[in-house]
């Protein structure tokens, strides 16, 4: 005897009901949690920007990344970040929500021939000025991005890297301090002031990164493509800010 659950009509009915029930359940959960998730993402951006300019709770001798507490972020962010600007060609506009600009959208816009908005955050800590910019590129599996803090000579003062889905233990290590901290002190320009970027290199035989003038940092073993992605995004995205820094020098 054919079972009730073997009938085509039952199968169709079940499939329809399942799609409706699970679909609305997921939609309900997603929409009720959306505001909280967006808020978390916003706080994370502020934490990343502050981390790049050295405002963090890393402590001494500790090798893990420690952001400042989520509950203190808003206060610290307005304390350290003095100005947020958006650069479009040579137009510079102040915008206090510049950190919310979606770099992915701007990159797509630029590809389609539009004008890309370049956000830049100016922070001050202990009398020193930091210029922090967000960059974004492609790793092995998915997107990688970073917040890079520079001084007025485009020398790296700090960086925070992150990724969507790089391989754990390999490419994912770009967000580890042993990789990120290597960038501190590296120069984006060569001796003649021409933009060179920083290459993640497998052959610089400088694992401790003592040489800060070689425009190179030591690569992670087993993470060639992620490392190349880091080099590429530094070259393509940070280069766009060079005119701003040149203007800055002229006006000073």
């Amino acid at each position: 005897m054919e079972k009730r659950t073997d009938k085509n009509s039952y199968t169709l009915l079940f499939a329809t009901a399942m799609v409706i029930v699970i679909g609305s359940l997921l939609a309900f959960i997603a929409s009720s949690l959306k505001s909280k998730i967006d808020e978390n993402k916003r706080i994370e951006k502020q934490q990343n920007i502050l981390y790049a300019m050295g405002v963090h709770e890393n402590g001494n001798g500790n090798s893990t990344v420690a952001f400042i507490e989520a509950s203190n972020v808003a206060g610290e962010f307005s304390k350290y970040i003095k100005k947020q600007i958006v650069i479009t060609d040579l137009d510079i506009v102040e915008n206090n929500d510049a950190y919310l600009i979606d770099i992915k959208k701007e990159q797509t816009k630029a590809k389609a021939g539009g004008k890309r908005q370049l956000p830049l955050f100016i922070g001050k800590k202990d009398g020193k000025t930091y210029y922090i910019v967000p960059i974004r590129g492609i790793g092995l599996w998915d997107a990688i991005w970073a917040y890079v803090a520079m001084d007025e000579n485009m020398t790296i003062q700090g960086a925070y890297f992150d990724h969507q889905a790089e391989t754990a233990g390999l490419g994912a290590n770009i967000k580890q301090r042993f990789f990120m901290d290597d960038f501190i002190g590296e120069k984006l320009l060569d001796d003649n002031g021409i933009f060179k970027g920083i290459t993640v290199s497998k052959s610089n035989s400088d694992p401790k990164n003592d040489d800060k003038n070689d425009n190179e940092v030591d690569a992670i073993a087993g993470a060639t493509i992620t490392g190349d992605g880091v080099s590429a995004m530094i070259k393509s995205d940070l280069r766009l800010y060079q005119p701003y820094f040149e203007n800055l020098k002229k006006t000073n």
Partner: protein
Amino acid sequence: MGLLSSKDSKLISDPLSDDNPITIQVLGICSALAVTAELKASIVMAISVIFVMGAGNVVISLIRNIIPSKIRIIVQLTVVAALVIIVDQVLKAYSYSLSKELGAFIGLIITNCIIMGRFEAFALANGAWRSFLDGIGNALGYGLILIIVGFFRELLGSGTLLGFPVLGDPIEKTGLYSTGYENNGFMLLAPMALIVVGLIIWVQRSRNTDLIED
């Protein structure tokens, strides 16, 4: 286990040894290969799978009599996917830093063939409580192997455990490295996961010859 009858407790203990999903049934190899380059990722993946498998087995077991047999695989897949998305969203909202840690693993859970395997082989034919135990047991058996593999790969590949340098500093040449020892970078690459799993299978079968097939 006083709480469980001997039949029930076998559901938990069998997958840990004689019926291990990885070493005996050779399932879930893909994720065992992907996440075991470091111990922490292995542990996180093990915990996530324990949760999804326990809950998924219960859900499938509860609706097993109304699932149309023609589309049962699709139904199972939908249940796993829905569970994983719910976990992902809730973590993002309430424990953002943990969800950042998990990142890519969340998606990998869906593709874990042990989960579909247990739905198909056990939950479709057994009650909710027994299915729950079976799910937890198999996830533990899977997690155990994952953690063993992760332990050796991280120790021999990076010289660290859970990120802590336990063998000294390879650059400063302290600890074990002062004797000329070097990390084996090959341990970090996927093929070594399979070789380590193979070694575990060898050890297990040589200790229990009943497991050897002709």
